[in-house]
C-alpha cells in the first residue's frame, strides 16, 4: 500500500500548492483587480460586508504570513467567505448547490465514454485492418478536434432547437420539485442527455485509440499465441487474455483525463445553462465575485485530486506490480 500513500503525499502537495496560489493570486496580481472590485461595490454593500471581504482578500495591513494563517484557519472550519454576487450567501452554500450537478454530469459522461471507448478499442484492435478500424479512429480524431462546447452548441441547435427532442437548458424542468420520484429522475436524464453526449463525442476517440494501441502490442505476446494454440474461443482470448492486460494503461489515463473532462464539462455546462460548477464559475468571473471564484477553484481541484486518489487505490488493487514494487 506504500504506492497509494506515496500518491496521497503528491495530492497533498498539489492541494497545498493550489491553496498557496489561491491565497497569493488576489494579493500579488498587477493592476489591483480586487481594488477595482471594491470600488465597484462601494455603497452597494454594508460597511461590515466590505470589512469581511477586505479581510478575506488580504486588505488588512497584516503581514502575509499572518494573513495566510488566518486564511488557513478560516478554511479549516469550512469558511470560504461570502459570495459577492449572491450576497450574503456563504460561498460554501452556493458551491454545494452546484457540486452535485457537475459530479453527475461529468461522472456519467466519463463512465459512458470510457466504457464505450474501451470496448470499441478492444474490438477494432481484434479486427484490425477491418472496416471499423479504418474508419472510426479518423472519424473520432476529427470530432475530437472540435472544441467540446462547440459540439455542445451544434447538438443543442440540432436536437434542441430544430428537432425539439431534448430540453434546451437547466438540469431539470422548472415545473418539477426535486426529489426521488420517477418523473424527476427521468427528467434529469433527459436534461443531461445532450451535455453528456457532447462530452462523450469529444472524448471517446482518445479512449478508443489508446486501448487499441495497447491491445495491439499485447496481442503480439506469446501467451496470446499459447491461448489460441490451446484452442480457447476467440471471445475468451480477446477478453480474458488480451483486453484484461491491455486495460491497465487505459486506467492510468483515466486519472489524468478526469481533469480534462471536468474542464470540458465546465464549458459544456455554460452552453446548456446547466447549474453546475462551470456555470457558477463563469457567473462568478463575470460578476467579479472573487471569493466565489476561489472557492470554486478549490472545490474543483479537491474533487479532481480525490478522484485521482480513488483511481490509484483501484489501480493498486488491480495491478499487483504496483503493490510489490515499492
Amino acid at each position, binding site marked *: 500500500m506504500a504506492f497509494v500513500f506515496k500518491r496521497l503525499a503528491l495530492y497533498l502537495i498539489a492541494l497545498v500548492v493550489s491553496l498557496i496560489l489561491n491565497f497569493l493570486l488576489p494579493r500579488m496580481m498587477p493592476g489591483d483587480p480586487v481594488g477595482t472590485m471594491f470600488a465597484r461595490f462601494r455603497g452597494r454593500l454594508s460597511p461590515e460586508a466590505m470589512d469581511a471581504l477586505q479581510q478575506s482578500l488580504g486588505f488588512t495591513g497584516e503581514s502575509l504570513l499572518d494573513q495566510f494563517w488566518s486564511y488557513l484557519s478560516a478554511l479549516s472550519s469550512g469558511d470560504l467567505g461570502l459570495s459577492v454576487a449572491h450576497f450574503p450567501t456563504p460561498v460554501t452554500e452556493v458551491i454545494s448547490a452546484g457540486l452535485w450537478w457537475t459530479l453527475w454530469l461529468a461522472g456519467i459522461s466519463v463512465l459512458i465514454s470510457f466504457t464505450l471507448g474501451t470496448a470499441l478499442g478492444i474490438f477494432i484492435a481484434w479486427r484490425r485492418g477491418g472496416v471499423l478500424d479504418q474508419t472510426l479512429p479518423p472519424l473520432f480524431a476529427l470530432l475530437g478536434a472540435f472544441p467540446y462546447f462547440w459540439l455542445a452548441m451544434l447538438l443543442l*441547435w440540432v436536437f434542441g432547437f430544430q428537432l425539439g427532442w431534448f430540453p434546451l437548458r437547466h438540469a431539470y424542468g422548472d415545473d418539477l420539485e426535486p426529489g426521488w420520484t420517477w418523473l424527476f429522475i427521468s427528467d434529469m436524464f433527459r436534461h443531461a442527455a445532450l451535455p453528456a453526449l457532447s462530452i462523450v463525442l469529444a472524448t471517446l476517440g482518445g479512449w478508443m485509440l489508446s486501448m487499441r494501441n495497447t491491445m495491439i*502490442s499485447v*496481442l503480439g505476446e506469446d501467451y496470446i499465441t499459447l491461448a489460441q494454440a490451446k484452442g480457447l474461443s476467440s471471445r475468451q482470448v480477446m477478453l480474458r487474455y488480451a483486453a484484461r492486460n491491455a486495460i491497465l494503461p487505459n486506467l492510468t489515463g483515466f486519472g489524468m483525463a478526469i481533469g480534462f473532462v471536468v474542464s470540458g464539462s465546465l464549458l459544456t455546462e455554460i452552453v446548456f445553462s446547466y447549474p453546475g460548477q462551470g456555470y457558477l464559475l463563469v457567473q462568478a468571473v463575470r460578476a467579479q465575485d472573487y471569493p466565489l471564484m476561489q472557492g470554486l477553484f478549490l472545490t474543483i481541484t479537491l474533487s479532481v485530486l480525490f478522484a485521482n486518489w480513488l483511481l490509484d487505490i483501484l489501480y493498486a488493487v488491480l495491478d499487483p506490480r504496483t503493490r510489490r514494487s515499492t
Partner: protein
Amino acid sequence: MNRTSWLLDIWYNPKARCGFLILGGLASLAIFGPLFVSDPSLSVARPHLSPSWTHLLGTTGQGQDVWAQTVVGAGLTLTIGFTVGLLVTVIGAIIGVISGYLGGLTDELITALVNVFLVIPGLPLAIILAAYLPTGPLSMVAILTVTGWAWTARVVRAQTMTLRGKDFVRSASLIGEPLWRIILVELLPHMASLLLSTFIGTTIYAIGAQVGLEFLGLGDMGSVTWGTNLYWAANDQALLTRAWWTYVPTGVGIALVGFSLALINFGLDEVTNPRLSVDRIWRSRLHQLGVTPTSLTAKVELRSSTATSNSAAEIANKRGVRDE
C-alpha cells in the same frame, strides 16, 4: 536510419502531407486574407443576415461580416497557439532534460513539481489566472504556458532517462563535455521527432484552451479572434435566433487546424515509430500475396529497445486528441 531522413519521410507520408496542406492553406488565409476583407469590427449590414453573395457567411448579431471575422480571427488565434506551442516545448524540454539527465535531488524536486501541475486541473487554474491578470495576448500566452508546460517536461524527462545510459552520452560526459553541450548537442537532437510531436500536441491544446477561455469572456473581448467570435455569437443569442452561420465557420476553422495538426502527428508517428512501420510493411506484403490478415495470421514485431523508444510520441499523439 539517417538522423534527419525522417523529416523528408514525413512529407512523403500521405497523412502528414494532407495535414501540412490543410494547415498551409489556413495559415496563408490568416496571413493574406485580412488584405482582402473589410474591417471585421465594423457594422456593415443588418444583424443576423443569413449567408448571401454580398456577405458570404452572413452577418453577426452586431451586423458585422462573419467571413471577415473568421479570416481576421484566424491570425491572432493561430499566432497565440503556435507561440504557446513553441514556448511550452522550449521550457518543457529544458526542464525535462535537466531533470532527467542530472537525476538525484534536482530530479526529485522537479518531478514533484511536474506531477503537481499535472494533477491540478488546467482550465479552472487558467480561469482564475485570467480573471486576475490584465487582458491581452501576452497574458493569454503566459496563462497557457503556465498551465501547459508540465506535460512536455514529463515526456522529455522520460526520453532523457532512456538516452542517458546510451554509450554516446556516456562518452561525451567522460571526455568532459560541459553540461550545456551534452544537452544541446547529444540529447536534444536525438529527440527531435519527440519534440516536434509534443510541439504539435501543445499547439492543439493551446488553441483549444485559448478559444475556451475567450468563449467564457476571459481575454481581450475587443480583439477579433476565433474565441471572441464564439463568445459574441453566444452572447447575441445565435442559437435562439437560429443564426448557425455565426458560430459554425469558426468551429470548422478550429477543427481544421486541430485535425491537420493531428494528421501531421499521426504521420510523424508512423514514420518514426518502427513498431508501426514494421506492421504496415508486413500488412502490405500480405496484401500483395492476396492474404487477408485474421487474428490467426502471424505478426511481425520489433522487440528491441528501439521499438519502444518512440512510444512517447504515441503518448503525445493521444494527448493531442484528448486534451482540450
